């Protein structure tokens, strides 16, 4: 009986570990292999504070959560700079250092012997020193941790996390603050893992460094992968499966040292097999929010807010912008003005610096020299998401859709001023977020209707045709509600019919008072929509004028229009 209780308790602990790890890797796409270290922080904090300072429950647990979350936030710092294999190696190193600190920590950590004599969990005179008494507590903590993780994952914040996972720069272009999101998700994942660690210490009444090695991190990773990344129920299932499965080996009469290795061998194999034949895991990822039924009668508002036509002052002014990459000048002394109610075109040969100019205007690149003013405010050097908040947004030539999210989610992520992007609101203002979410879905559907993608709302972005992908890029940009819209080749590669259908859309944006700027190669498009055209070559603005003026210039005609 105690054996079964033991298994159930281990399931509870690993459910906490796997769900919290899933937040990090499945939702955030942050591949940090240091989860067992966060687990260790919780366990050692409880062991040290109870045995050496005699703190009563739940203070050691809270201290462990705080410490672990703090370190987690610190680990987020390298994650701001590096990604992919670099993040893997840095966090792997952290994991190994933590175990080394535990091993060499002298009397504080008990060295390789660990710390014995951790008191059983107890509140006042009630001491839960039997597995039967401990199980309900462990299960309750698992349930609470699951709720915390689930709430976060299925909020607008969780949706933004997945957008960041899919494409960081596109998430920034949708106005998301990557620094904030990474700090929060690391702190949450680490803090939750510490809860499991604290329970571990109380249950075994012992902690030792061998429980928190890199193998443990890989074990938890296997649970997340087998259960399915981006699905928290999957992580619970993965934890249950990997706790039970090895125990079944006990029914084979293997010598104990072989059984232990066979257990690890099996989960290693299972991990490879699942990745190979069911890469989405047992439970695939589901769209977390905003699932609407196609054909449902939505109260549709026009997707684009209409502003009154402003006077002719320039909304965006770039002065003497300069950018070079390792000696290669991309943009030199470039002046640009964008006016509301006008469509401004940027044309020129490949490598002329058009996209670099966009990157500077929208904060993705810091200009070496020069200033950018937006409605009279200096926005030079602001972070991309801040510039989006100011009201200037851009699209990317290579689309950068959030591919494993639905069409509707792609648009929802881009909507401005969502309370659900702030963590405190996720937990403290659920009603507000629910109301906003209802409105936002209606707004997003409005935008989709505007570009003609409403019937694809629930499809994954990766399943769209190329033309539909381009439409989604436009929808996502419109959804930002920005006053200034910068399109990087929005129409290239579209068939003539779609193109003819979209041209008036872009004109209409300008007529409604938006400031529109567009990079384009197709001269028909330029003649069709642009009021003013900047011709760039080798980083300079060679000519500025109406499309007709530029096309009748004999020099430009020879060099570019042919």
């Amino acid at each position, binding site marked *: 009986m105690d054996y079964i209780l033991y298994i159930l308790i281990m399931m509870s602990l690993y459910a906490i570990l796997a769900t919290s790890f899933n937040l990090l890797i499945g939702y955030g796409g942050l*591949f940090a292999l240091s989860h067992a270290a966060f687990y260790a922080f919780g366990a050692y904090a409880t062991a040290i504070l109870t045995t050496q300072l005699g703190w009563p429950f739940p203070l050691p647990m809270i201290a462990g959560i705080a410490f672990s979350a703090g370190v987690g936030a610190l680990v987020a710092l*390298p994650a701001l*700079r*590096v990604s*992919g*294999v*670099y993040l*893997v*190696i*840095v966090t*792997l*190193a*952290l994991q*190994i*250092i933590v175990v*080394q600190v535990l*091993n*060499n920590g002298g009397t504080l950590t008990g060295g390789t012997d660990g710390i014995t004599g951790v008191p059983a969990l107890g509140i006042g005179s009630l001491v839960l020193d039997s597995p039967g008494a401990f199980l309900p507590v462990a299960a309750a903590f698992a349930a609470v941790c699951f709720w915390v993780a689930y709430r976060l994952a299925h909020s607008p914040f969780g949706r933004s996390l997945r957008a960041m996972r899919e494409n960081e720069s596109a998430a920034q272009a949708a106005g998301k603050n990557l620094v904030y999101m990474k700090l929060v998700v690391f702190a949450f994942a680490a803090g939750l893992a510490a809860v499991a660690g604290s329970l571990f210490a109380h249950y075994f009444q012992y902690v030792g460094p061998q429980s928190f090695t*890199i*193998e443990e991190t*890989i074990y938890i*990773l*296997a649970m997340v*992968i087998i259960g399915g990344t981006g699905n928290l129920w999957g992580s619970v299932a993965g934890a249950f499966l990997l706790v039970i499965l090895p125990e079944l080996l006990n029914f084979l009469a293997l010598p104990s*040292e*072989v059984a232990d*290795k*066979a257990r*690890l*061998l099996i*989960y*290693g*194999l299972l*991990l*490879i097999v699942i*990745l*190979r034949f069911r*890469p989405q895991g047992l439970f695939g990822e589901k769209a977390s929010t905003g699932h609407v039924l196609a054909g449902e009668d939505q109260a549709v508002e026009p997707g684009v807010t209409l502003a009154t036509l402003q006077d002719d002052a320039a909304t965006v002014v770039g002065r003497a912008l300069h950018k070079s990459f*390792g000696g290669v000048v991309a943009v030199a002394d470039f002046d640009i003005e964008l006016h509301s109610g006008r469509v401004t075109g940027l044309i020129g040969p490949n490598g002329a610096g058009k996209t670099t100019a966009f990157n500077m205007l929208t904060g993705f690149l810091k200009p070496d020299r020069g200033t950018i003013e937006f409605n009279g405010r200096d926005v030079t050097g602001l972070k991309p998401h801040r510039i989006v908040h100011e009201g200037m947004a851009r699209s990317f030539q290579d689309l950068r859709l959030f591919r494993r999210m639905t069409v509707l989610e792609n648009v929802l992520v881009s909507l401005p001023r969502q309370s659900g992007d702030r963590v405190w609101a996720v937990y403290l203002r659920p009603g507000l977020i629910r109301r906003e979410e209802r409105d936002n879905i209606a707004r997003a559907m409005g935008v989709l209707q505007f570009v003609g993608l409403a019937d694809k709302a629930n499809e994954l972005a990766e399943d769209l045709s190329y033309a539909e992908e381009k439409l989604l890029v436009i929808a996502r940009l419109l959804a930002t509600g920005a006053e200034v819209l910068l399109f990087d080749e929005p129409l290239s590669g579209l068939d003539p019919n779609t193109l003819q259908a979209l041209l008036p859309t872009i004109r209409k944006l300008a007529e409604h008072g938006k400031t529109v700027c567009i990079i384009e190669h197709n001269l028909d498009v330029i003649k069709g929509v642009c009021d003013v055209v900047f011709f760039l070559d080798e980083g300079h603005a060679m000519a500025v004028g109406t499309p007709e003026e530029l096309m009748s210039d004999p020099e430009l005609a020879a060099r570019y229009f042919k």
Partner: protein
Amino acid sequence: MDLLLQLLVNGFINGCHYALLGVGFGLIFATTQVVHFAYGPIYALTAYIAWYTATALGAPLWLAVLIAAAAAAVIGPVTYLGVYRPFQRRQSSDLVILIASLGLLIVIENLIGILFGAGSRVIEGVNFSVFLWGPVVFTGVHVWQVASLAVIGGALFLFLRYTRFGKAILAMTDNPEMARIVGIDTRRVSIAVFAIGSAVAAAPAVLVLLKDSATPHMGFHAVFMAFVAVVIGGIGSLRGAVLGGMLLGLAEGVGLWGIPTEWQSSIAFIVLFVVILLRPQGLLGQRT
């Protein structure tokens, strides 16, 4: 001063060891983009195979080394064809392949434990001469560790630089897409790279077996140091891997001057953090 000199020599010897590990790992990584964590347990398995042929089968040491290297040259490509390639064909992300290689690491490591037991294995009765060089002491194994880097690293360099096949490998390292377009059989090159990279690690594996012993867990530390050496040196640069490994060895060695032994392996991480912070593309890497 004498102590510092000794630490420098020790560091240099360990640096050669890490450098060779880094070259094998880095060659595979640069050419196929696979973060081959199973490189570690295969390295360990190689040591066990050498131990088995030398003790249980009674083969002479030089033959044991050759058999171990040949076995590694087979096992490496088997992991590529059996595990990594199916993922690459399906265009799985690099991280998926990385997770699969972590799974493979666990599988091979525990397979070793089941086959050979958890204890350490040594070859008895091999004695190396001790050299005294002023105040500095080192042994024949140390000389071999340095020589193996010079010989194997040098041979690999000549092979990559001056043979047709070697140039094909470098081309693929440079740009796999372009290599395919110009007609390089990338599958064959990948298989070859896994064979060469794994066989390269046989020398350090056997030398560690002779110097200390073989243990089932020796692989993780090895692949980790190789990985760190490659990242420090710059992904895609084999000279970088040598430089990175050397730097790790020297930093660990000289670090002992002021840091207690039990913290020695933390020194590598400090080097790693500093490099990633100041020069994320690695010492000899190109900024992308």
